[in-house]
Each structure stands twice: as structure tokens, then as C-alpha cells.
């Protein structure tokens, strides 16, 4: 997240051409930004070398026995373990189970969040009724609700999905609500003079105007969905990545734990990528959108 922010804030490298007049002669000098000037090595390679070195170090520590398998399995063991888990189909099944939980929870929580935000964003009465409650509830960390959720829903799938739904509802609620409230009032008035009805204003002006914020909310929701998934899967799971992990813990299979961690990370990256593509297509009209 932080790396992304920094990357977004840094100016894009661009070549500049400056014309200088010296002794009545025009000279063209190309000034290249620092990033492009570094000799030879392409940027991608240089950026990749850090993680690769780390991987190499990890490998060396493992094979020399300085880092025992019971503490952290080496890359080679992790790879072979991945192959085994894939061959037996365990990993795929676990991924699907976890993905299903995350997406179901997000779907439920997200719908509720967007619906409530629309109600309190559009209607004064809705705001009075809904917003105060939501602002109050959102101060409670959803993870802290796990004990209650277990009492209410038992230890099956329901509390896990409920936890994810609860966690994801708030980021979407807050951002969609802010998006609706920040819609330019002059655009609404222009729409009224063009003859848009109340429903037409909502559909053609308010909701599209709130879309950028809604997508920000979606991104936050996805981030907390993973977090909630990891926590939720600690609740007596009998399937899914969390189950694989707690099983591995019992048998000190650190390699399986590493595989699961990598899977969590990859799932997170994939979903983030999907949201970026979504932003790119849905917000292509935005001048500020420089493409991530």
C-alpha cells in the first residue's frame, strides 16, 4: 500500500528537450530524467534484484542449516511442498473455499454498505437514521466481534462470512456516502434545468458522480476482506487456506505455512489488479487518472 502511494506520488520519468541559443546557433539538448539515465541495467531488473537477493540469502541459510526447517522452511522445500499440494488438489480446493468465503462476505457486506450509503446519502431522513448508527458502529474493530459472531452463528461457515461482511460494509459505506455528498451541486442544478426527474438525477448525476469514491471504497473493502478472511479462518476451519495453515501448525510444517502465506498474498494482488482494471475502464473519463 505504502509502496503504491509513493509510486503514485513520484513524477513519471519523461524526456525533455531544451533549446539553447549559443553563438547564434540553436542546439538541441535532450535532458533525460535520473531514472532513465542509470547506465545499462533496465529499471525492472534493478527493482527485481532486491527480492531475488533476499530469496538467495534465504536459500543459502536453509541449505547450510543456519535456518532450520522447523523455524522456516527453505525455498526449495516450499516449492516442492507447493507441487505436492497442487498435485493432491488440496491447495486448489483450499483456495476456492477461501475465495468463496471472501467474495460472499464482500458481496453481502458491500451490498449492505452501498445500500445504506445510498439511503443516507440521498435522503435527509435516511442520513439521520442511518449515519449516526454507522459512524458509531464503525469505531468497533470488526475482529473484536468474533466471540459474539461465534455465539450467534456457531463455528461453521456463517461466522466467517459474517465477519467478512461486517468488515467490508464500512469502507464502502463511508466512501459511497462521501461520494454522494460531494457531488457538485451545480451539476445537479444543471440536470434539473434539463428536465431530469428525481430518479433521473440520481441515475445520471449523483451515482456516476459518486463512482470514483465508490471504487476507492471497494479497494479498501477488498483489503479488509482479506484481513477478515485470515482472522475468520482461525475459527475452527475444516476447509480453506486457514485450515491448511492450522493443520500445518500442528505438524510444524513451516513450508505449508509459507505456501499459504504466498497464496494469501497472490490472491490479494490479483483482486487488487482486478479493481485497477475496473477503475481504468470505468474512470477513463477522468483527467486526473494517469493509469496505474
Amino acid at each position: 500500500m505504502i509502496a503504491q502511494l509513493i509510486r503514485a506520488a513520484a513524477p513519471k520519468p519523461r524526456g525533455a528537450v531544451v533549446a539553447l541559443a549559443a553563438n547564434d546557433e540553436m542546439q538541441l539538448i535532450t535532458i533525460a530524467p535520473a531514472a532513465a539515465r542509470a547506465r545499462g541495467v533496465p529499471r525492472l531488473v534493478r527493482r527485481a534484484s532486491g527480492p531475488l537477493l533476499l530469496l538467495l540469502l534465504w536459500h543459502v541459510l536453509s541449505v547450510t542449516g543456519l535456518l532450520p526447517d522447523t523455524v522456516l522452511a527453505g525455498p526449495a522445500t516450499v516449492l516442492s511442498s507447493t507441487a505436492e499440494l497442487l498435485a493432491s488438489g488440496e491447495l486448489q480446493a483450499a483456495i476456492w473455499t477461501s475465495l468463496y468465503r471472501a467474495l460472499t462476505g464482500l458481496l453481502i457486506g458491500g451490498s449492505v454498505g452501498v445500500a445504506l450509503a445510498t439511503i443516507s446519502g440521498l435522503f435527509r431522513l435516511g442520513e439521520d437514521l442511518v449515519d449516526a448508527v454507522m459512524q458509531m458502529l464503525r469505531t468497533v474493530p470488526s475482529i473484536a466481534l468474533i466471540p459474539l459472531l461465534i455465539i450467534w452463528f456457531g463455528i461453521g461457515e456463517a461466522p466467517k462470512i459474517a465477519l467478512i461482511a461486517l468488515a467490508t460494509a464500512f469502507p464502502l459505506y463511508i466512501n459511497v456516502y462521501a461520494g454522494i455528498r460531494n457531488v457538485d451541486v451545480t451539476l445537479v442544478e444543471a440536470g434539473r434545468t434539463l428536465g431530469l426527474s428525481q430518479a433521473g438525477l440520481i441515475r445520471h448525476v449523483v451515482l456516476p458522480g459518486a463512482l470514483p469514491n465508490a471504487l476507492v471504497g471497494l479497494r479498501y473493502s477488498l483489503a479488509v476482506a482479506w484481513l477478515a478472511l485470515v482472522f475468520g479462518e482461525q475459527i475452527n476451519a475444516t476447509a480453506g487456506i486457514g485450515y491448511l495453515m492450522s493443520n500445518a501448525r500442528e505438524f510444524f510444517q513451516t513450508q505449508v505455512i509459507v505456501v499459504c502465506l504466498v497464496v494469501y498474498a497472490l490472491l490479494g494482488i490479483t483482486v487488487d489488479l482486478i479493481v485497477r482494471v475496473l477503475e481504468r475502464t470505468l474512470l477513463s473519463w477522468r483527467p486526473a487518472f494517469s493509469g496505474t
Partner: protein
Amino acid sequence: MVAAAIRVEATTAPTAGSALHVQDVSHQFKLHGEPLAVLERVNLQVAAGEFVAVLGPSGCGKSTLLRLVAGLEPPSAGRLFIDGELIAGPHPSRVVVFQDPTLYPWRTVWRNVALGPEAQGNLQAKRGRVAEALKLVGLTGFENAYPHQLSGGMAQRVALARALVNDPQLLILDEPLGKLDSLTRIAMQSELVSLWQNAGFTVLLVTHDVEEALFLAQRVIVFSDRPARLKTEIVNALPYPRHRGDPRLAELRHAVLAQLGLDATW
């Protein structure tokens, strides 16, 4: 069948525009809990097809008057009539072009212009009019551009096209050229005149530019400081097309500046 065909003819034929009657209208806002009088007993009659400009010091209440005419707000006191009927709310036959183009950034130029007909549910029938309006303001070829890809002048043209496509009877213009560079402004002033002459709607234009008011309008209303009252009106009977260098325009300009208390700067 024949009767229906004739009726369609009649409604799409150019009409002479709407007549506006502002009757004893006062308006006030609440500012920090205090009432702020903005309009004070304004009376104004605009004949069908007339081009009237409103001039006045900044902040005196010109935009407020236009908002009342547009039906965006009800007046605190008094009444406004359009063709003898009380104005109760916004209507696309009284469409407004604001100082800022207020285009929908997520809609292309074409879809911005098409929003009015889309809202009325007759976009299919009016597709031709959308293209026509874009051609009228010289933006053919930019249909698929997004507002951020346009210059200020182009965006304001889109706003104008978006208004015209509704076949307005009263075109309400709130300093629509105020932010344009002077060359674009001069070009668009001439365009406005020819649009008005061809389409035959009524125009109520607010501007802070004395020359613009005199070049465009048949009648110039001068407002006082806030709260706005009618101070004077100047009838400009010069025929169209007018010439910018016309000495009679310069004379009228002198008269208007005197009314605004600026005769010393002449």
C-alpha cells in the same frame, strides 16, 4: 393521420419564444442566520422573442434573478410568469447556460448534449437534433471527446448546444462568455445573435460586460447594488447585424457607464 402529421409540424416549427413577467419579486437568503436581501421588488417584462441583457455590480443579485426565472428556487415574495403561467419549477423550455459549462465529466460531448432529450425520453426522435446542435456550435468531430479534453471555449459551446437541443423558448444565460478569452468571446457573441435570430427564442442574458450587453441585446436592464432594484433600462434599437465599431454603440456605452457610476472613467 393527417391531423397528427400537422400537429407534429406545428410543434417543431420555430416559435417566437416565451414571454416572461417578473412581478414584484423580492428575494432574500439567510447568511449566518441573518436575512440578506438580494432582490427588492423587481418588476420586469420580457416580450416573446426579445433579447434582454441584465447588467449590474457584482454580487447584486443577477444570478439569483436567473435562478428564480429558471425555477431552481421559489422567490421569497412576488411571482414570476412564463406566458402567463406561474413558474413552479425548472423546465427544459427554460434552460440555463451557466458561467461554468457544468458538463458531466463522465459523459462524452455527444452524451452531454443528449442528456436533455434522454431525460424527456425522446432521444431516439432527437438524435438528429443533437448532431445539428453540435454542428451549430462548431463541434462536429468532437462527439466522443470527454469534457476534460476540451478547451474552455469548446466546453462552453457544448453547454450551449446542450441547451439548444431542448428547443428552449427562453434561453437563460448567466455570464456564459465571462471566462472565455476575448477572441473566442467575440466569435461566440456573433454566434449567439445568429442563433437567436434563426431559432426565435427569448433570451435573458446576464453579463458584466457593458459592450457585450449593448452589442447583443435589444434592451439592457441596469440593476442597483444589492439588494438589486431596477435602476434604468436602455433600449437599443440598432438593427442586426450590428457593427462593433458603431459610434451609436459607443454613445450608449457612455450612457450605461454613467448609470453604473463610472462616467468619470469615460
